[in-house]
């Protein structure tokens, strides 16, 4: 178990170094930062001084490791556009994006899982067919279209929900949350549904396919032959066996929710990291883009690590294999 965690951590470090390299190369290939920083009439000695001060005269490898070192020590640099330290900028935006992604994920799971179980148990029922048709829409409709239609219907026509923004936020130390105010919750509904719709359809179809598969297995037949109740068979024996692939997908999709909330955030003008990134792209704010990239990479790696550990909780076969030193 410990060997496994260490191994995964080592892999995570390698992945993060690679992500940092890509982020770093943004600086190298999107123009000379010194030119961006100084005026046209800055004398050459001044430019050289700045270049030395920023260590831009050092070999690329050294610069890369300085970049990594700075990130690791929590110094993310300064936004070129606003002049605000990027760490502060991210800290303001991160709660909004995380709340949106997690609520969207919970929504997708809480609705998608039961729908998937139902369609797996009763594949021929009408309700199942209706769910499947809906899920097809969920998978195929583009996110922005769902968002705009929701705004049109619930904000413009019915006037029930706010069409943009985050509503009132409550500050809990460094964390700003929209979950504690009525307007914050109202504002969250449509973006979360928009962002979670695709995942919902995905989870439902995945759970359904897995349920159909598991229900055909011998151990389900044997469980029925032992006279266990339907509830015990369907939810105890069958559902638990479908969970491993579901955990994988949900974990990966949570990373995707955070990374690809850009579109949803832009449709609903949600003040999260995705919107920050879009604004950074428009202004060629390279440090912000680079740090965004690193941060998203970090979240992905972190979530994957947690997913790997969850396998151990669910599947006893993995636990024993490692203990016996068989592994692999």
């Amino acid at each position, binding site marked *: 178990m410990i060997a496994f965690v260490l191994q995964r951590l080592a892999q995570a470090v390698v992945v993060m170094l690679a992500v940092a390299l890509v982020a770093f190369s943004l600086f190298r290939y999107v123009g000379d930062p010194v030119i961006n920083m100084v005026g046209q009439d800055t004398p050459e000695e001044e430019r050289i001084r700045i270049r030395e001060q920023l260590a831009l005269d050092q070999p690329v490898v050294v610069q890369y490791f300085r970049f990594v070192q700075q990130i690791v020590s929590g110094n993310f640099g300064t936004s070129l556009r606003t002049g605000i330290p990027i760490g502060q900028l991210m800290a303001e935006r991160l709660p909004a994006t995380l709340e949106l992604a997690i609520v969207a994920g919970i929504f997708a799971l809480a609705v998608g899982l039961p729908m998937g179980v139902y369609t797996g148990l009763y594949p021929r029922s009408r309700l199942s067919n209706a769910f499947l048709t809906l899920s097809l829409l969920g998978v195929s409709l583009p996110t922005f279209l769902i968002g705009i239609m929701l705004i049109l219907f619930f904000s413009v026509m019915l006037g029930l929900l706010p069409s943009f923004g985050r509503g009132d936020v409550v500050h809990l130390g460094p964390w700003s949350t929209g979950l504690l105010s009525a307007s914050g919750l109202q504002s969250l509904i449509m973006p979360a549904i928009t962002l979670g719709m695709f995942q919902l359809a995905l989870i439902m179809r995945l759970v359904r396919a897995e349920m159909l598969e598991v229900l055909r297995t011998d151990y389900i*037949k044997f469980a029925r*032959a032992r006279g266990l109740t339907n509830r015990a068979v369907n939810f105890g024996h069958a559902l638990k066996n479908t969970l491993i692939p579901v955990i994988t997908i949900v974990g990966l999709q949570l990373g995707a929710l955070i990374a690809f909330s850009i579109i949803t955030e832009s449709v609903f003008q949600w003040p999260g990291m995705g919107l920050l990134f879009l604004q950074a792209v428009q202004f060629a704010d390279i440090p912000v883009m680079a740090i965004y990239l690193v941060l998203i990479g970090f979240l992905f790696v972190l979530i994957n690590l947690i997913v790997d550990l969850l396998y151990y909780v669910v*599947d006893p*076969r993995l636990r024993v294999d490692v203990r016996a030193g068989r592994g692999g």
Partner: protein
Amino acid sequence: MTDRPNAPLLEVRSLRVEFETRRGPLVAIDDVSFSIAPGEVLGVVGESGAGKSLTGTAIIGLLEPPGRITAGEILLAGRRIDNLPYEAMRRIRGREVGAIFQDPLTSLNPLYRVSDQLIETIRTHLPMNEKEARARALQLLQEVGIPGAAERLDHYPHQFSGGMRQRVVIALALAAEPKLIIADEPTTALDVSIQAQIITLLKRLCREHGTAVMLITHDMGVIAETADRVAVMYAGRIAEIGPVRKVVQEPHHPYTVGLMGAIPNLGHDVAALTQIEGSMPRLNAIPPGCAFNPRCPKVFDRCRVDRPDPMPVGGSDVACWLYGEGR
């Protein structure tokens, strides 16, 4: 109905199972009747697709759609069970009729400890608390001969070998002391050396508990060793049924004769094992008359027209016109 001492435990009367398909119904089991007395071991043999397993599945009420019972009845201790609602039948499964399936490697849920699966089964049927059920689970594991049962109780299925898993499966089937066990090819997936152990174990346990067994297999050796009576199935029908000694030593139905001739015998020098020409008909192409007639060496005109019902011949019941009147 009352429980007479000699009343059969299980009685299957004119059972017919059909599969609804787009091209009309396929008859998989046709007019099958037999009975099992309390404590008796009935062997059911036949080729793959003869309807052996399906008969067992029909008895425990787990036919999967589109398969369904379209005629006949199944009685357990005089009570009709083929038309019970799902919940009533669920209470009978495991409690009164247990089942063991072919592959012990896949019969146990990989995510639950053996103790969890045993305790769950015991508590579903018997009024026991967790602690009592656990004690019974341990006792069952000891009874099926798992060494170090106390320690093995909390292991997961993948920590057991194939033979040990089949022992666990048997413990699970016996957990609520059913009166009848349907054992569907319980040894086919196991090593030959383990097969004998499992069969001996099953036989001993059922004798001790007075449990009747419907032993489905295509291994005549297992039947000869274990069963009291044997039913030979062919194309969804019973060809011959009788005491095991009779059927093995003096088979009457040409199909049974062929089956016995195909078993190698170490005691005698035989130039070549006999083999039955051709193969069993598909369900959608069962010939009129006797289903065996295209392969039968002794076929005559009547076999191609009339279907024979089982008739008593020397202690057995044989469905063959060779023994019919008017011959």
